[in-house]
């Protein structure tokens, strides 16, 4: 059996899993198309994230464990781009906040300039310290009143800067840009050092991005969440009142409520598939281009590539920013799909390490592998819980119903997920490090 057939069969298998989930309720399958399409949609988003990580790891050997942060920035972009502008936000503090942020940025730029231009010594330290401390207090002096002014606007519903009220599809590239900016900052610092340092730095920035989103209410309403974000298609309720839609649904023999939810989900599936295919195509083109070959040459032998005059750190920065931007786009798509931004739910285990499992299982260095791994692992991530519950029921079937151990074991099945994902990662790394679809 040649490789292409084998790999096509793998994709067919994943498709079959989704179809089974929609059609039969036997075992782990749910038997509803709503659930099946839900898995597919998040699977597609995961596949895009995996594609971004694969760009960094598979092509360049960069170890990014801050995917969660870039994803969250994408989500933030959705809020900032699409949500309706808060009335009075700009006059009550918005301008002050922007001014404060600009001032803060200028302070940092000034500090960098001083470090670069002045000769090292006591004088430089003193001036640098004065600029940083003075800048910080000036920043706080403008920032704090502006924030309290802004957050005072109808805090139960608004209390944040709001957005630009632009169409939601524009938010996706904006999410990519935001993530790219953060990635540039990290890459500039940590690339060119030991590989572990990038890992630690990305882990850190992700935590901080989440902390900012949780606490800066003026920006993202923090843990109060932003709900009711606009969608790229009509809402279910609107559809259910549209006579044309009802007629079509009736002609297909579908209940109007079910038909409307399926309509929304299928539209998402199509949109996401289009984005995925576009990014996949670009990644493939990139991989085959001289640029992609150079990247892999650098990955395989940095010293040799450097000796041939390649600026390794610069190339790494390039691909790191690109990969993170893709994660940002995926994050924006995910927030759009959810229709809300809930900073409290971002968890590194789910948003960073799960993506890594996808890339490793799919086959690092192979774009198709990343896509396959993304959808497949997402399917299992959803299904590990019913599987674990089934297993636990089986294991504990011998125990008395009122046994404390039994109830503890049954209650803890949710944590089986982490354990299982870790196990899968280790097993694949050990026994099949090239993954399901190996790099060519």
């Amino acid at each position, binding site marked *: 059996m040649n490789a292409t057939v084998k790999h096509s069969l793998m994709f067919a298998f994943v498709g079959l899993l989704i179809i089974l989930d929609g059609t039969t309720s036997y075992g782990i399958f749910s038997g509803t198309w709503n659930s099946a399409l839900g898995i597919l949609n998040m699977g597609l988003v995961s596949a895009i994230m995996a594609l971004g990580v694969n760009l960094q790891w598979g092509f360049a050997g960069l*170890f990014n464990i801050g995917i969660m942060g870039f994803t969250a920035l994408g989500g933030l972009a959705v809020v900032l781009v699409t949500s309706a502008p808060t009335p009075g936000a700009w006059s009550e503090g918005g301008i002050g906040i922007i001014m404060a942020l600009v001032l803060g940025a200028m302070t940092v730029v000034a500090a960098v300039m001083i470090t670069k231009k002045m000769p090292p010594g006591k004088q430089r330290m003193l001036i640098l310290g004065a600029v940083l401390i003075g800048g910080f207090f000036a920043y706080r002096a403008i920032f704090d009143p502006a924030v309290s002014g802004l957050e005072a606007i109808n805090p139960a519903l608004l209390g944040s800067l709001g957005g630009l009220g632009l169409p939601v599809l524009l938010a996706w590239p904006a999410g990519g840009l935001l993530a790219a900016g953060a990635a540039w900052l990290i890459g500039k610092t940590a690339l060119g050092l030991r590989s572990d340092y990038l890992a630690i730095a990305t882990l850190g920035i992700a935590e901080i991005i989440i902390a900012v989103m949780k606490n800066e209410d003026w920006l993202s309403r923090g843990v109060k969440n932003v709900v009711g974000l606009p969608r790229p298609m009509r809402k279910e309720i609107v559809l259910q009142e549209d006579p044309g839609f009802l007629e079509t649904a009736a002609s297909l023999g579908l209940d109007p409520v079910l038909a409307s939810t399926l309509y929304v989900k299928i539209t998402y599936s199509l949109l996401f598939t289009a984005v995925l295919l576009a990014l996949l195509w670009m990644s493939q083109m990139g991989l085959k281009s001289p640029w992609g070959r150079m990247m892999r040459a650098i990955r395989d032998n940095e010293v040799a590539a450097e000796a041939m005059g390649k600026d390794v750190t610069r190339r790494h920065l390039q691909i790191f920013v690109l990969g993170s931007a893709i994660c940002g786009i995926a994050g924006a798509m995910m927030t759009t799909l959810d229709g809300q931004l809930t900073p409290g739910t971002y968890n590194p285990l789910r948003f960073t390490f799960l993506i890594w499992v996808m890339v490793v299982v799919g086959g690092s260095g192979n774009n198709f592998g990343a896509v396959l791994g993304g959808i497949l692992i997402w399917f299992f991530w959803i299904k590990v819980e019913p599987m674990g519950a089934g297993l636990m029921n089986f294991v504990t079937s011998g125990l008395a119903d009122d046994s404390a151990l039994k109830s503890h074991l049954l209650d*803890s099945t949710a*944590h089986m997920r982490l354990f299982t994902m870790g*196990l899968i*990662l280790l097993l694949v790394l050990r026994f099949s490090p090239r993954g399901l679809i190996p790099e060519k």
Partner: protein
Amino acid sequence: MDLLNAIVALTNYVMIPAIAYGSQLALGALGVTLIYGVLRFSNFAHGDSMAFGTMVTILVTWWMQSMGINLGPLPTALLALPFGILATMGLLLFTDRVVYKFYREQKAKPVIFVMVSLGVMFMMNGLVRFIIGPGDQRFSDGERFIISARDFKAMTGLREGLAFKTSQSITVITAVVVVIALFWFLNRTRTGKSMRAYSDNEDLALLSGINPERVVMYTWMIVAGLATIAGVLYGLDKSFKPFTYFQLLLPIFASAIVGGLGNPLGAIAGGFIIAFSEVSITYAWKKVLGYMMPENLQPDSLVQLLSTDYKFAVSFGILLIVLLFKPTGLFKGQSV
């Protein structure tokens, strides 16, 4: 009098908590730095090793409490600690045997080790949550305070109280004892010196007849001890929650890198640098300044540089500065 009040407030809210937290970070960073020195990778499962050791200690503590065993004014957890250490040693040696050893024999790149340690972290995390659940657990008992704020006020007549928690004094004393024992071991014993030699120059250590597998085994055992002690002290001082222990990775790594990865002395210094920065940057200085400044200059804002929600940003900021200007750390670390 006001100056005294200011000093007491500073000690109470900044110095004591930072010293206790710094000791906990230092012990954690020592574990990370030892693994880095000997096995040459950043062990991302360290936070979860700490969580595992603490969990076992908590379970044994609960059992002891139910049996009526206690240490009087001291927390029972101290009695349960050796069991936690032994269990963690067992777990770490087991993971080394079934996971890391394979890659060592393959001479895999460090980044592969890091990735593998992520998988281990995942599994340990799942294991801990599976056994004890994801929630908050408090397990300290015995006397809560050596000096409570009220007693202190009564004793001195000052307006400011000074509280000194039992857990804080235990943390500091234990940390000092552990660090002295560790340095004695590394600098005075044959096995300790062989660990340093292996960390310094692997090939030459092999030529000198040092058995790498023994060195690795001892390293994991010591790291298990350090991780469990750090975890239990942190849990006694604050509380135990698996996710918090995972998050401790960031300040711990920052401490180890600031001090210079692979350098034990640096890990200790780094731990205190991070702890003091974190506590003093997130502390609201209003009270202290209020005592020190003349009436009309007293600040009306909290004078808090960053809200406590951003304490990780402090470790991260320091980390970035060190990476930018001195990637080998303040003390000489092993490599860039």
